[in-house]
C-alpha cells in the first residue's frame, strides 16, 4: 500500500500528528464520505433538484392550500398575468373556449327577438281576414297609420298580476297586491331580489343613482318599475301593456309618497302602516282583454261577403286564365310546323308568342281562336322556316308536285314514299322533282299504282274482243259488221280520252285478215282493204290522241275474214311540245 494521496488528504501537509488520524478517518468513513459527496453533488445540480421537487409538488400544493390561502395569494398575480399574456398571444383559443357559452346566450337573445316578431306577425295575419281585421283596415286607412300598428294597438292583451311597493333603501317589502289569477310566492324575497338586481345593474353599468333599471323580462312576464325617493313600485305584467300604464305607475308612486311620507321616512322594518297604500296599489291591477268577436252589422257582413266573393271570383278567373293560356300554348307547340320559343302572358295588353312557323302549317290564329283568344289578344311573332315535320313535308310534297288526290304520301326521316294511284305522266314527273322538295332526301313510288297503264290495259282487253266479220272475198261492211265497228269505235274513244288525260298519244293497229281461199296476193290486198274500211268506219281522224297503223295480214292460220284492233300498251308517250 502506497502513502495517502495528497489530493485526498490536504491535511497531509500540515503536521505529522494529523497524518495518522486522517488515514484512520479515510479507512473508517470511506463509504460515508462517498455518500456525502454524492449528496452534495445532487444538491448542487439544479436538474436533480427539479426532479426531486417534481415528485412531491402536487402533494405540497395540496397541503399548503388546505392550511391557508398564502399559496393562492402568491400564485394569483402570476396566474392572472400568465392568462393575460396567453390571451394576448393566442386570443383565438380563448375565443374558442368561450364560444359555447357565448353562443348559447346569443342564440337565446336572437330567439327572444324572433319570438316577438313572430308573435306580432301572427297577430297581423290572424286579423287580416276577420271581420274585425276589416274594420281595423278601414281604421288604418282613415287614420293613415300602418295596419300592423292598428292590429297591435287593438288586440293588445295584458294583465297586471302583481304590484310591489318596495322600500328603496333596504329592499324590504312594504306592501304587495296581486290579481286573483296570480299566486305570489315569497313576495318579500322577490322584493329584496328586485332591489339586488337593480343595485347590481346600476353598479355594473356605472349608471348614476337616478338612472336605474326600470323594466325587466322574465319569460312572458315583464316587470315595470317606477321609482320614488323612498320607495319603488314594481308591476308584474303578463302580455304587453300600453305605454300609458307607466303614467299610472308614476301617479301611484307619487300618491303614496304624498300620503305616507312620514312612515316612509322613518321606516324601521315595520310594514304595517303601508296597509294604507293597498287601494293605490290595487288601482294598478288593471287588465285588458282582446275585444270579443262582435256580432257584425248586416251591412258589414254583406260587404265582407261581397269582398270575399270578389276575391274568390278573381282568383278563379286568374286560375282559369292561366289554365287556358297554358292549353293554348301547348296546342301551338304540338302543332306540326310551329315552334314556340317564347310565350308570355301579360296582365295588361296582348299576350306574346314568339317562334317559327312553316308557311304550310295550320294557321296559329285558328288554333288560338279555338282556345278563346281573338287576334287582338295575342301578338304573334313567328319567323318562316321549312319544317321537317312529317305532316308538313308531305303537305309540301303534295303542293310542289301537284299530286292528284289519289296519291298518298308518307314521310319518315328524309324518305318520302308515294302510294295510291296516279297517271303515268305524273308518276314520271314526280320521280324527277320529288328529291327537290325541301326536307326530302329520297323518293320511292313502288307502291304507287299507274292508273293510265291500268286503264289502257282494261280498254285494250275489251278492244281485243272486237272482231269485225266480212263476207267472203269482200271488203264491204255487212250490217252486222257496222254494228261491231261502232262498239270498237266506242272503246277507241275511251282510249283517246285516256291518252289525252295522260298528255300523250297511243298507237293502235287495225289488223285485217283473209281466209285461206284465194291467192296470197288477193288475200294480202283484200285484208288491207278490210282494215282501211274499218279505219274509215270508225273515223280514225276523230281520235286526236291515237295514232293508227293499218295492216293487211293476208291469210292467217285462223283463216278469219275479220278486222281486229291491237293496242300498243307501251306506246304512250308524251306529246311533243311542238305537236
Amino acid at each position, binding site marked *: 500500500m502506497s502513502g495517502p494521496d495528497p489530493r485526498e488528504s490536504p491535511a497531509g501537509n500540515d503536521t505529522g500528528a494529523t497524518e495518522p488520524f486522517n488515514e484512520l478517518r479515510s479507512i473508517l468513513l470511506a463509504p460515508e464520505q462517498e455518500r456525502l459527496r454524492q449528496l452534495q453533488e445532487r444538491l448542487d445540480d439544479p436538474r436533480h433538484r427539479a426532479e426531486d421537487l417534481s415528485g412531491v409538488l402536487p402533494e405540497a400544493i395540496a397541503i399548503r392550500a388546505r392550511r*391557508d*390561502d398564502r399559496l393562492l*395569494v402568491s400564485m*394569483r398575480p402570476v396566474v392572472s398575468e400568465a392568462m393575460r399574456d396567453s390571451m394576448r398571444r393566442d386570443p383565438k383559443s380563448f375565443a374558442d373556449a368561450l364560444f359555447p357559452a357565448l353562443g348559447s346566450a346569443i342564440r337565446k337573445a336572437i330567439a327572444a327577438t324572433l319570438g316577438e316578431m313572430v308573435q306580432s306577425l301572427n297577430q297581423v295575419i290572424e286579423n287580416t281576414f276577420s271581420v274585425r281585421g276589416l274594420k281595423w283596415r278601414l281604421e288604418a286607412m282613415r287614420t293613415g297609420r300602418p295596419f300592423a300598428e292598428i292590429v297591435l294597438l287593438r288586440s293588445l292583451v295584458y294583465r297586471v298580476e302583481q304590484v310591489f311597493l318596495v*322600500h328603496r*333603501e*333596504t*329592499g*324590504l*317589502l312594504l306592501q304587495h297586491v296581486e290579481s286573483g289569477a296570480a299566486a305570489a310566492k*315569497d313576495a*318579500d*324575497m322577490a322584493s*329584496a*331580489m328586485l332591489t*339586488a338586481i337593480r*343595485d*347590481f345593474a*346600476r*353598479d355594473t353599468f356605472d349608471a348614476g343613482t337616478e338612472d336605474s333599471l326600470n323594466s325587466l323580462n322574465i319569460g312572458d312576464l315583464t316587470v315595470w318599475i317606477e321609482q320614488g325617493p323612498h320607495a319603488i313600485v314594481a308591476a308584474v305584467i303578463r302580455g304587453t301593456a300600453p305605454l300609458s300604464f307607466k303614467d299610472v305607475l308614476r301617479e301611484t308612486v307619487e300618491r303614496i309618497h304624498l300620503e305616507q311620507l312620514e312612515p316612509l321616512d322613518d321606516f*324601521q*322594518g*315595520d*310594514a*304595517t302602516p303601508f296597509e294604507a297604500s293597498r287601494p293605490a296599489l290595487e288601482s294598478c291591477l288593471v287588465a285588458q282583454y282582446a275585444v270579443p268577436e262582435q256580432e257584425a252589422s248586416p251591412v258589414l257582413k254583406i260587404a265582407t261577403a261581397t269582398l270575399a266573393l270578389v276575391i274568390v271570383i278573381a282568383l278563379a278567373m286568374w286560375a282559369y286564365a292561366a289554365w287556358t293560356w297554358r292549353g293554348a300554348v301547348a296546342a301551338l307547340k304540338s302543332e306540326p310546323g310551329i315552334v314556340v320559343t317564347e310565350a308570355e302572358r301579360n296582365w295588361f295588353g296582348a299576350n306574346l308568342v314568339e317562334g317559327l312557323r312553316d308557311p304550310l302549317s295550320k294557321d296559329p290564329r285558328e288554333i288560338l281562336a279555338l282556345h278563346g283568344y281573338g287576334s287582338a289578344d295575342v301578338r304573334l311573332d313567328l319567323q318562316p322556316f321549312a319544317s321537317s315535320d312529317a305532316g308538313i313535308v308531305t303537305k309540301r310534297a303534295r303542293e310542289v308536285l301537284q299530286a292528284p288526290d289519289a296519291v298518298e304520301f308518307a314521310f319518315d326521316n328524309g324518305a318520302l314514299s308515294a302510294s295510291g294511284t296516279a297517271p303515268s305522266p305524273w308518276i314520271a314527273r314526280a320521280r324527277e322533282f320529288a328529291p327537290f322538295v325541301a326536307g326530302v332526301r329520297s323518293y320511292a313510288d313502288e307502291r304507287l299504282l299507274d292508273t293510265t297503264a291500268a286503264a289502257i290495259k282494261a280498254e285494250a282487253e275489251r278492244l281485243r274482243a272486237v272482231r269485225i266479220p266480212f263476207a267472203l272475198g269482200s271488203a264491204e261492211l255487212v250490217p252486222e259488221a257496222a254494228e261491231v265497228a261502232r262498239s270498237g269505235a266506242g272503246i277507241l274513244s275511251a282510249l283517246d280520252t285516256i291518252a289525252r288525260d295522260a298528255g300523250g298519244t297511243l298507237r293502235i293497229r287495225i289488223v285485217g285478215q283473209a281466209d285461206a281461199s284465194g291467192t296470197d296476193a288477193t288475200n294480202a290486198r283484200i285484208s288491207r282493204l278490210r282494215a282501211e274500211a274499218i279505219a274509215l268506219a270508225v273515223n280514225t281522224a276523230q281520235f286526236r290522241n291515237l295514232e293508227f297503223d293499218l295492216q293487211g295480214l293476208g291469210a292467217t292460220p285462223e283463216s278469219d275474214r275479220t278486222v281486229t284492233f291491237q293496242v300498243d300498251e307501251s306506246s304512250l308517250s308524251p306529246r311533243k311540245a311542238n305537236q
Partner: protein
Amino acid sequence: MIQKKICMLGSFAVGKTSLVARFVHSIYRDQYLTTVGVKIDKKQVRVGDNDVTLILWDLHGEDEFQKIRSAYLRGSSGFLFVADGTRRSTFDKIHELQENAVSAVGDVPFVVLVNKSDLKPEWDVDAEALGAATDRGWTVLETSARTGEGVEDAFLAIAESMLRR
C-alpha cells in the same frame, strides 16, 4: 310584522351560504358552490314578543378581485361577519369588512361568527385572537353549519341586537 335586512359578509368559502342553508332550510352540503352576486333568503324568528322576518342577503365572498358592492349593503339593519376557524386570514379580514360596512351604512349591530367549529382541532384562530376581539366589544360566536352547532343562536343574537336598537 317587522322585517330586517341582514347581510352575510366574509371571505370566500368560509360558509356563509352554508350557514343560511342550515338556518333556513336545515340542510348542509359538503360541496362548495361559490356564490355569484347575491342570494336572498328569509326566515321568521321570534324575539321576545316580536315576530321578525329576517331578509338574508348572502353575498359572494370578498377577495382581491371581488370587492363587495356597497350598494348591496345599503339599508342593512345588521351584519353577520363570518370567518373560517381553520383559516386565520379570514378572521383577520373581518376588521376591514367591518370598517367598510360602517362607512357604507353607519354603525349597525353585527355579530362575528367563527365557522367550522366541527374542525376545531385544525383551527388556526386561537383563544388569544378570539379574546382580543371580545375585548373590542365584538360578539363572537362559534358555529358549525355542518353540525348545526350555534347556528340558530347566531341568527337569534343578531336579531335581538337589531331589535334592541
